[in-house]
């Protein structure tokens, strides 16, 4: 320990990094948490919070020229909205590369807290079906853990984060430790009643979300106020973010050192001891390099950035990564396939007098219903998809002009419910992230090269979602039912995963069942890069659970003198 600056270094301060810092600090480790982005303090740095449209730059819409110049990828996460542009990466200053021009949208944040400030907050557990999928259909690397192993860790992180949801008893979407759910609106309840009757096995539930419906006074957090301005930061601390939840907990221990503007370029490694010996950073402002040393390293830089850092961490005298003895580092890059939409109108005079008061932070969810008990006979694909949606009434359209138009626009249009399908993406070994040794970024790091495509199975699921979606809405009695497809581009769902996949066999995977690198016992990779498959549900709760579990294991190993 004598040569170490810290007991542990956590690289990244997003959803995973925040949890790693909290857990390690609370177990009395001296922790350094590094983030490449600038500092954002809870509350005081939420500069657009609570502002009306008239108070936002350009009334909320960043000019096209600026978006095209600086946010060609991050615009897909919302960087074009001036209410939150400051929470996104400048893509011009942080370029990436593509193999054979295959597109990838890497939507990155640029601040302490990472994407925890701007995430969609959908908070779902994976099920046993998800963890067994690779083994069952032979795609990708079999998961070495099962749902039962992770279940207590889901409970642990859910209780602290504060998750609102309803218990449904569904095997494909396990219940958790929930606060009461956010309410559904009149049209959603109307659809739920008819849909669940018309299509056996189909469920429509309030989307489980990390926006609290009950206060947590012990954490200084207040329940959601239904502003739906989450992406600007929330001073109430109503939704889970590093700033509101894990950072205060880590700071309270007195064990945390947090440094912003520190770009990790690579890890230093000693092949003799098979340990990571240092974390090399370049200061984003001064461009000065420094190496920090610790006994344990948690890599939580975000799925794609963690791959980039690992690939750039070479064995001495080699261009091979120390973490790639398996040869699969940077392989099996995945993202959910989405942007197939279905919608319909709820036409019932009983709903006409009703509108929505307040702006809910969530919507409704249709849990996976395909291939739940083995292969559905009519499914030409493996695995499945879920659907996220909401019913809303838009203000009436302008017709004509003048006083009559203005008066007519005081009314609402019809109740329309709309869903977007999110499909599981199979782990393809040749969907890769590699480095371009001939192009370095401004910190001297080789550019990440993306070579990722969706394939037949994903496209078949998108088609099935449109067909099934239209059929179920018609069966439920909606009118003007339709669907459409937008371009499906990997990265766009911002659920990118894989590359440093978990597996039992060190010859075929990068981390073991404890998220611990096969090639370095003191390195834990606990963000999305460790995922060996994607499920079809949103992944953040699983990152949290795996991170808390890995931290617990790492400290036990350290105390036993094993690492």
């Amino acid at each position, binding site marked *: 320990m004598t040569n170490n600056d810290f007991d542990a270094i956590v690289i990244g301060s997003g959803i995973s990094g925040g949890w790693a810092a909290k857990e390690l600090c609370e177990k009395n480790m001296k922790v350094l948490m590094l983030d490449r982005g600038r500092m954002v303090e809870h509350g005081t740095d939420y500069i657009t919070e609570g502002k009306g449209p008239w108070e936002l730059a350009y009334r909320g*819409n960043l000019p096209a020229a*600026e978006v095209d110049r600086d946010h060609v990828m991050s615009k897909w996460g919302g960087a074009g909205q001036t209410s939150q542009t400051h929470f996104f990466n400048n893509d011009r200053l942080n370029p990436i590369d593509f193999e054979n021009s295959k597109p990838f949208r890497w939507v990155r944040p640029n601040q302490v807290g990472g994407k925890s400030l701007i995430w969609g907050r959908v908070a779902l557990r994976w099920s046993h079906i998800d963890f067994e999928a690779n083994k069952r259909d032979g795609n990708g690397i079999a998961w070495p853990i099962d749902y039962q192993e992770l279940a207590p860790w889901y409970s642990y992180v859910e209780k602290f984060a504060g998750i609102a949801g309803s218990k449904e008893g569904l095997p494909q979407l396990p219940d958790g430790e929930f606060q009461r759910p956010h*309410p559904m*609106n009149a049209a959603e309840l109307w659809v739920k009643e008819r849909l669940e009757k018309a299509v056996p096995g189909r469920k429509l539930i309030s989307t489980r979300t990390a926006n609290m419906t009950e206060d947590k006074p012990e954490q200084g957090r207040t329940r959601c106020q239904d502003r739906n301005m989450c992406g600007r930061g929330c001073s109430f601390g109503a939704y889970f973010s590093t700033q509101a939840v894990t950072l205060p907990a880590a700071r309270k221990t007195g064990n945390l050192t947090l440094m912003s503007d520190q770009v990790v370029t690579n890890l230093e490694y000693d092949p003799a001891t098979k340990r990571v010996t240092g974390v090399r950073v370049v200061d984003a402002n001064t461009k000065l390099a420094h190496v920090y040393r610790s006994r344990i390293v948690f890599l939580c830089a975000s799925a794609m950035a963690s791959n980039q850092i690992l690939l750039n961490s070479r064995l001495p005298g080699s261009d091979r990564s120390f973490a790639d003895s398996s040869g699969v580092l940077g392989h099996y890059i995945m993202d959910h396939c989405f942007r197939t939409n279905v919608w319909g109108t709820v036409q019932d005079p009983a709903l006409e007098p009703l509108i929505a*008061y307040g702006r809910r932070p969530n919507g409704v969810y249709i849990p996976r219903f395909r291939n739940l008990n083995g292969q559905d006979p009519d499914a030409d694909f493996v695995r499945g998809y879920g659907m996220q949606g909401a019913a809303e009434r838009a203000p009436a359209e302008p017709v*004509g002009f*003048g006083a009559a*138009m203005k008066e007519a626009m005081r009314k609402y249009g019809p109740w329309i419910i709309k869903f977007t399908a999110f499909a599981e993406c199979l782990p393809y070994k040749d969907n890769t992230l590699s480095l371009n040794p001939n192009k370095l970024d401004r910190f001297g790091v080789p550019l990440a090269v993306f070579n990722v495509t969706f394939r037949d199975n994903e496209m078949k699921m998108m088609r099935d979602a449109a067909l099934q979606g239209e059929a179920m809405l018609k069966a439920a009695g909606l009118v003007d039912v339709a669907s459409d497809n937008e371009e499906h581009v990997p990265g766009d769902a911002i659920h990118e995963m894989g590359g440093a996949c978990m597996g039992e066999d060190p010859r075929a995977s990068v981390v073991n069942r404890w998220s611990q690198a096969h090639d370095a016992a003191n390195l834990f990779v606990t963000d999305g890069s460790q995922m060996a498959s994607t499920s079809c549900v949103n992944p953040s709760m699983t990152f949290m659970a795996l991170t808390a579990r890995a931290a617990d294991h790492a400290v036990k190993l350290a105390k036993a003198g094993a690492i």
Partner: protein
Amino acid sequence: MLFDRRGLLARAGMILASEIAAPLARALAAEAAPGFSATEVQFTPDQRALVSAVSERIIPTTDTPGAIAAGVPAFIEMMLADSYAPGDRDDFMNKLGMVEGYARIRYAKAFVALSPDEQDQVLTLAMQGGISMLGEEFFVHCRQLVVLGYYTSEIGCKQERVYLPVPGRYDGKYPYADVRRVFAL
């Protein structure tokens, strides 16, 4: 929320609630041709007066303030200057000039000097595609700019619509009869 991912267009769509004119869509969706750079455009005083007059007829002062009080003309000037591609901006200004030209031929007066009824007749004709060389879509485009500017203004949000900065609860079965207005986004 589902529609957040869609970003700008979705939000503008919620305000406009209709198909968005292509130049405005380009400005909002950031798909302008590369090389576009924002430049300062200043309306001439006559152009500013014309835009003000047209805006006010589209959303006039009634029991709540109209477009001029809400700052819509300045909003349109800002959008054209900072967000529109140069070609779209020039096209818009040219077509606005055709509305002015029609007023001068038909009434031998500037649009701003016409009575409100006469102004409405000109705009109605523009809406119906009755002004030569000026398609119906110009009126729709113009109306979208006015609608977007008005309903994102403080007056539009707080006086014409009902603004809830901190609702504190969600009620998805709220009686419209209790408010008889639209809640601002």
